[in-house]
């Protein structure tokens, strides 16, 4: 999972980034609005956190332009503007949710989760594939009743795979989702994460299949 955060207050941004990474979401943060277009041009994001009052432009303008390009990525506006009119305006021009500052971290996280759930094929809290189940709220994996707790990057990879429910996903797409602009995006690292995950799924009926030249996909093991 990867989020784009546009917020000019660095303290708030840091808190948001920390909170998002606790949720296993990779973040790219910019304090000025003009980085927005450059970012979405070169990377794919699962969610965008957008402030309205920015030093160079305002969030509404950015959002309007972004929605004109028919992008579907959920956008959560965080703003200190208190009026209902601003909120309604934000939602009308294509924001998916609007959070008024100050807000509690819990509420922020709940709303981010709700927005991310929209993106998956299933809207229920738990996604299952074979004997693996994934709780979207707690972000925990389990095989039968045994909890599986992989490190954040591996978890992120498995998340992408289980959400696509057996569809093939390219290595590049995975890399883009789990690394931010500051990481040294080494695609070969993905192979290591896949390798480690396969080990952890040894006892399960699910395996990660490699489709040469295409990418990876979850598959049910025919010979348990």
């Amino acid at each position, binding site marked *: 999972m990867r989020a784009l955060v546009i917020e000019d*207050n660095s*303290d*708030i941004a840091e*808190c*948001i980034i*920390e*909170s998002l990474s*606790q949720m296993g979401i990779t973040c790219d943060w910019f304090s000025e609005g003009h980085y927005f277009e450059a970012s979405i041009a070169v990377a794919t994001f699962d969610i965008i956190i957008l402030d309205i*009052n920015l030093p160079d432009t305002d969030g509404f303008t950015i959002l309007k332009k972004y929605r004109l390009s028919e992008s579907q990525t959920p956008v959560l506006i965080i703003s*200190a*503007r*208190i*009026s*209902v*009119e601003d909120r*309604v305006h934000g939602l009308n021009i294509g924001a998916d949710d609007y959070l008024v*500052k*100050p*807000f*509690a*971290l*819990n509420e*922020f996280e709940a709303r981010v989760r709700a927005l991310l759930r929209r993106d998956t094929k299933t809207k229920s809290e738990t996604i299952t594939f074979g004997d693996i189940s994934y709780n979207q709220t707690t972000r925990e994996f389990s095989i039968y009743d045994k909890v599986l707790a992989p490190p954040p990057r591996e978890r992120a990879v498995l998340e992408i795979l289980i959400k696509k429910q057996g569809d093939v996903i390219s290595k590049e797409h995975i890399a883009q989702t789990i690394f931010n602009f500051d990481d040294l995006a080494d695609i070969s690292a993905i192979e290591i994460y896949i390798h480690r995950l396969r080990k952890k799924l040894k006892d399960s009926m699910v395996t990660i299949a490699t489709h040469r030249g295409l990418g990876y996909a979850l598959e049910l093991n025919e010979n348990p």
Partner: protein
Amino acid sequence: MRTRKFFTTLHGRLLKWLVIPLIVLSFAHMYSIKNNTRITSTELFDRVLINLALSISQYSISSEGDLFTVDLLDLIRKTTKDKLYYKVLGPSGSFLVGYHNLPEPPDGIKKIDNHIEIYNATYLGEPVRIVAISTLSKHSRYSGWSKTFVGQTLKDREQFTNNVIWDNLTRIVLLITVISILTFISLNFALKPLKQLIFDIKNRDIHDLTPIVNLGLPEEIASLVRGINELFIRLSKQISLSRRFLENASHQLLTPIAALTLQCDLALRKQQSPESISSLNRIKANADRISRLANQLLHLSYAEASAFDYKKETPVNLAEIVKVCVADLTELSKVTEIECKLSNTMIKANNTLITEVINNLIENSIKYGGKDNHILIETFVENDEAILQVSDQGPGIPPELRQLVTERFFRGTNDESGSGLGLAIVKEVMLVHHGSIEIDSVENGKGTKIRCSFPAYSPS
């Protein structure tokens, strides 16, 4: 007091400046008329008296001092209502006929044409005007200078003068009255557009700053209207400036508070020691209070800075806003029982401000509602008024404090956590929505019932 007020009106002022000088001028005019008339009448009556004296003199000489005939006496009486006295002295001063003790002319009196003397005197207790004429007769018996005196009381002269004065006085009074009435009427006509203007301004919405339309107003009033319109333009500019200031202020205030609460939340997750957790919780509680206060202040300023135009607001359903507010309540309120009796109630209002009103009312009811609180929120329409009513089971507000609690920063004696802004905001918001707030007890002084009345909205 009332007359004093009258003289500050335009009618009063104009009358004051017109009628008082007119009266003073009239007095002067009357005075000069009186003098002139007296001089004229003296001259006229003196001339008559001289002629009469000449006739009497000729008659008495020619009749050799005989008594006057009835015809002559009649003729003399017809000329005047005054009493006439006469005497004729013959050449050597011998008395011929008449009232022998008629006063002689005082010494040193100037003679007219060398043989006529005119003077005032008193005869038989009355003021008289006397003419003495010396005539030279060549009669057989009385040849030489004889002297004829004719005296006349002053009633005719006075009456003549008085008639002239009264006549003039009546005309002047009539003139002043007519001028006053005409002034009144013309002023009424002239002030008609001004009255219309006052009516228009009085009935204006407090937030309506569109220029006043000038339809054929007299130039004096038109320039007043231009002045007012210029003021409106400056006011609108000022309002949009303060609105922008508020937007900036709200951002500047709320952003650091947001950072503070978020950092508290994060720190709480990492902390293990109970002391740190407790202090972090206290920091967070205070940060929440600051944020609530900042929010309230901003809403109060929004309401005051007329950040919205009542006329342009779209109709909203009070019941729907209450539902959203109740659904958005934080953990704080979850311990309190809240009952809603909501019927659809449409009003023309600003959503943000009404939300703030409802939040403040619920917050107050929770805070001051006591232990076994039960809050009842109602919306309904009654006699063309849309009512939002919130009641609780608390100790209630004593009647003498009910006016005070809507003042800014007023807080009850044992109220530590309140900001003292809640009801001030409610009052302010009600004001800009053309509504009113009423504080009462639920029953027998127990419980607080706050009733907000808005003008009900009907699509027509």
